[in-house]
């Protein structure tokens, strides 16, 4: 089976087979990272535009390295999602990009649906690098790759996602991806950070983290976006960072109730001392750095597949 989509916008739209194709391709491309000369000619002559309209170092760098190892020409465009204010709309930007004939555009944007808007108006491929609180499919793919590497399989595993589920694109993409591949998912956090009707997405809801993590194979802690929270009209979704971290932060003490082979994941960057204590983030269960490594592999796989490569 090959890759047939023009764009990658959501995990929701992917078939299980498509997800596995990306993971398998990533696994075989991962070996490039261990070479002395980290470069293959797969995307020579192809142009990838990183259109990052929201601050991001990690995802942008990851795409950039992935593209460079595949010999693509990478252009980084950063800006603010509020460029509307400056008179140039996203659509203007998109049309200008189109005129420069890129092959793939990766977009990161603060508004849900921005990648869809771009995909509708561009002939080239669009990869959603995170759109508001909607989806972040490449993050879910790298998380699934990491879990599969560590556990040997995905089906039947139990994951708990803890934190600001309501504002998390990482949570949404992982919920779709994990569910499609046969994992069970529980979301946990203060009720004000759990979105309404989330149970209809096929997940369980827990409010007490101790209970939620008891038989989990994977604990995924989300970054608390307190800077974003301040921008909301509804301020004060929880009383204080102190109380949040005491009740929902992951500490060694709370971890005592978890399985011995539990994996602890985090999309980064970690707010040490808020969603998890430093000992947990840097401890033996943590696979946070493997996630970063796999991020490059998954993005190489996607660029490769979307530029027309045959999957492994």
């Amino acid at each position, binding site marked *: 089976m090959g890759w047939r989509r023009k764009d990658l916008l959501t995990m929701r739209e992917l078939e299980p087979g498509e997800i596995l194709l990306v993971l398998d391709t990533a696994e075989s491309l991962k070996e490039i990272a261990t070479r002395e000369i980290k470069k293959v000619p797969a995307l020579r002559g192809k142009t990838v535009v990183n259109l990052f309209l929201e601050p991001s170092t990690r995802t942008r760098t990851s795409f950039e390295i992935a593209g460079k190892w595949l010999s693509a020409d990478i252009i980084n465009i950063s800006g603010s999602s509020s460029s509307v204010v400056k008179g140039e709309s996203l659509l203007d930007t998109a049309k200008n990009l189109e005129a420069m004939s890129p092959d793939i555009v990766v977009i990161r944007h603060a508004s849900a649906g921005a990648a869809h*808007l771009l995909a509708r108006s561009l002939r080239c491929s669009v990869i959603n690098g995170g759109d508001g609180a*909607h989806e972040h499919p490449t993050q879910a793919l790298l998380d699934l790759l990491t879990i599969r590497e560590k556990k040997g399989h995905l089906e039947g595993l139990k994951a708990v996602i803890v934190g600001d589920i309501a504002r998390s694109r990482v949570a949404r993409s992982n919920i779709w991806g994990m569910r499609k591949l046969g994992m069970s998912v529980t979301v946990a956090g203060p009720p004000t950070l759990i979105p309404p*009707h989330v149970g209809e997405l096929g997940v369980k809801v827990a409010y007490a983290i101790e209970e939620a993590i008891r038989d989990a194979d994977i604990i995924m802690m989300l970054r608390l976006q307190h800077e974003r929270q301040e921008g909301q009209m509804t301020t004060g979704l929880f009383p204080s960072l102190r109380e949040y971290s005491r009740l929902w932060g992951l500490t060694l003490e709370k971890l005592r109730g978890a399985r011995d082979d539990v994996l602890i994941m985090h999309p980064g960057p970690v707010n040490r001392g808020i969603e998890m204590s430093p000992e947990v983030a840097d401890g033996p269960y943590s696979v946070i750095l493997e996630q970063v490594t796999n991020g490059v592999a998954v993005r190489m796989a996607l660029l490769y597949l979307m530029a027309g490569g045959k999957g492994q």
Partner: protein
Amino acid sequence: MNLLVKGGRLVDPASGFDGLADCLILNGKVAEVGPALRAAEGTPVVDAAGKVVAPGFIDMHVHLREPGYEYKETIATGTRAAALGGFTRVACMANTEPVNDNRAVTDYILAKARDEGWVRVHPVGAVTRDLKGESLAELGELAEGGCVAYSDDGRPIMNAGLLRRALEYIQPFGLPVISHAEDSTLAAGGVMHEGVVSTELGLRGIPSAAEEVMVARDIILAELTGSPVHIAHVSTAGAVRLIRNAKARGLRVTAEVTPHHLLLTEEAVRSFDTDTKMNPPLRSKADREALQEALADGTLDAVATDHAPHAPAEKEVEYDHAAFGVVGLETAVPLLLHHLVHGGILDLPTLIARFTGGPARILNLPGGHLGKGADGDLVILDLDREHEVDVARFASRSRNSPFGGWRLRGFVWMTVVGGKVVQSEGVVRGGAR
């Protein structure tokens, strides 16, 4: 203007008449309704055989955008759209620039409508100065100037004490307050209905409670003051329950619903198409069913389009940043003929009543019926003619409709204002009134 309309099925819900009859208009007024009417030599005759003749439709909630936002719509283009849509009267909201919160703006709108309007225009005055929700507009003068209701539509009046004073103060003038029922602290910057779809899409939600809390409050204030309160664009099953209960208790509460809330749900937002963004938002399937039922049983008195034109630059942007609102004048009647009447949800006389007598009673307008001496305003419908909605051909200056490409059975064949044919077969004619 004189006109004889012959051979049609005449439906006049005000009198309960539904049968074959002719209608003679003399000097712009209905002179006679009955079988086999004759007119003097030279009177224009319209052959309405096989068609439905009804009182001219009234859209009690439109945004004509003039003065101030002529790039979105003008009184000329908006009333052309109304004529094409079968409406002979429209009530235009006060959120222009400047706001219609004083007599000078009301006079301007009425003068423009006289010179350039294709149908009758009834301004709605603001409740509060500059729609700020802080102090009362000159409500007495607005009534004297010809406003037919008061509304800060587009914005809620969050200050209950101020709304109470407004409702008391307007008692001598006899105009209703039209409430944009939305608690802004609950709506909290949302852009769509709060539900499973908003959760999936990661878009901020507006809970049904944002509307229902305010509907409940407004009903309580209607009871306290005894003044008429009309709830604009009802969108939730809970609001319907509150209104039904208020009416059962005999309170002076009325309500309207839009075609888009009657036909679409939150599911439409999945495409991130910004023409599905409006306020109140498209709700759930259960809400849509409750609205259809309430329109049938009369809990909802009127269909109103909330015609809200916006320029492409305001819509071709990220969903979060897009303007709220859709145009509706040119699609409302065919949409509801197709989906409600042909769909078996509502009978034709009831739908016509919601477009005529319903709004006329709320706004105390002279139209909405075909009794002798009434204004000679008619709409003639071809129930079976099919067509496809083509937004590119709208007379409205704006194109922001979620219904482009829909195939519909039911067509507004002719619109008559004061005995003058202003639209026939989808073409406006004869110049403005």
